[in-house]
């Protein structure tokens, strides 16, 4: 699997961060109250694990501009 360029990773990170934050209040809406002191460290660990997995288990083919597609086309 091809690794996204640094730009793609950065945009992905932005989406992951906002999803992680908003998911906490979404859980609250569903009646699942998770203490912030528990949720946010767990969410941060999950985000770090996700990006570590992307870095470890993908092939690096992006160019230095962060453009993954340009490197392969």
């Amino acid at each position, binding site marked *: 699997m091809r690794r996204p360029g640094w730009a793609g990773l950065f945009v992905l990170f*932005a989406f992951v961060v906002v999803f992680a934050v908003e998911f*906490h209040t979404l859980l609250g809406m569903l009646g699942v109250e998770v203490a912030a002191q528990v949720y946010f460290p767990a969410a941060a660990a999950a985000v770090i694990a996700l990006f570590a997995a992307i870095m470890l288990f993908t092939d690096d083919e992006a160019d230095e501009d*962060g453009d993954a*597609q340009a490197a392969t*086309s």
Partner: protein
Amino acid sequence: MGLFVDEHPDEAFIVRAALMSSFIALLVGGLMGTIQALHRTGFVQVIDNSTYYTVLTLHGVSLVILFAIFFLVGFFQWAITDSLGRGAVDPRLTKAWYGLMTLGSLMAGIAILGGFTDITSMSADVLFTFYAPLEAHPLFYAGLAVFIVGTWLAGVDWFRSWWLWRKANPGERTPLRTFMVLTTMLMWYLATTGVAIAVIFFLLPWSLGLVDSVNALLTRTLFWFFGHPVVYFWLMPVYMMWYVILPKLAGGRLFSDPLARIVFVLFLVLSVPTGIHHQYLDPGIAEGFKFLAMSNTMFLLLPSLLTAFTVVASIEHGARQRGGTGYFRWLTALPWNKPAFTGMALAGLMFAAAGFSGMVNAGMNLNYLVHNTMWVVGHFHLTVGTAVALTFMAVTYWFLPEITGNSVFSERLGLVQVVTWFVGMVLMANAMHRVGLGGEPRRTADPFYEGVTFDTALGSIGELHLQIALGGLLLTVSLLLFMAHVFLTWFDVASRPAPKPETLPPALSGPEHAPAVLGNLRLWTGIAIALIVLTYTLPIAAIVSGNGLFGNAGVLAWGVETLVSLTAGVVG
């Protein structure tokens, strides 16, 4: 074909001046926003509660009037000149409208700034929605009037260029960018009649003491006659950027030129007769008129949905040109490393969310739940604060080299800037929506009245306030990054190589596929006027007959009452 600045140096000067004015307003308005976000949430309070309204007015006026419209006129000047391939007919007129807009901005700005000091009694703490009964210093109203006259003259300038082009090119279809500018300006002329009447005949004489009172409901109605279509005045240049620049950045071409023209015609026809949907809770306007405004507003979803289809189809075409494949995998082939592309794409995504919250605002029954709450503030931070502001900032990374002749300082820094804005706005706007659902009011320095805690099922208010404050701080960081970036590019601090000239590719389905009637601007303007007359005549007549032109039923009101009776008789 060279850079715009080389081909049209005089016009590029005006574009640069307009953008400079726009960015100054953005910086001022943005910093006021930071103060508000921290003050309202209680984290940092550097002003007292009474000054909050001066800050709020400066925030609103700076951003939604000065930042947005100065950017718009600069961009439109480029669009007209570049697409027609000819300079301004009379550069003196071009300089005159820019000068008037600047003068008007300074007049209104001085009146607002007066609210910060006790040295003068001058103030204009009337917010962006400057209708009665809030009253500002006459300089504020006069400044707004001068500013709007400046925009009118800008439209005259562009129409003159087009008329001369048409004489020189008989039978040719108007270039798409010019068509978009002209339809936008026609809509603006119609929309601003309401606010012009409100300012010149009511608010200015009232603030000067020439009349004792005004009909508050009438000035509100005239304001919203302008106040909703002004949203489309900000959005239509954004749509132009999404239609003509975004597909190019994605590596492709616009999917359909005729569809883009249809969208702009629909905005011309439908934008104005919708304003009453801001007044669902106003007594004095019959429910039937409100229902009509709601219907017109819902029709406006059509051009937005057409745009979503056309722009996404164009982007997908670009991605496939770059080697993208699959149902969704093509998304990874897009140039996410370009801040101009990423910023506009994220702005478009956020605009979709804004459309959903906008439908709640526009629906009469749901509106009763969110009216005058922070929900509405969250909504327009997604529309004007993201769809418009983020697109304007993103397009600057593509546009600035064209008008300055300098390459962008750093694409990476630009990407960090637009993504920071996106994250900050998601946090802030979402939390605003949710505290609004919890009942937290807007337009107030301190939302916590005694004994009211706004306990809600949708997450704790404290957590949401933290998101608002955090989002506001991220937006401030992004704003400062943007301003630094503009400065470093404008003055070519990095001495980077000169940029290459950009050309915009033709649409996949070109203007020759558009029915000729689409270009009949007289017809569409006539239909727009007819709709406005149908939507507004009876409500305004009823408002005047009920309370008089100046707030007291009298001789004038009797005349209007007779007119209403006669009209009702004819209709009946």
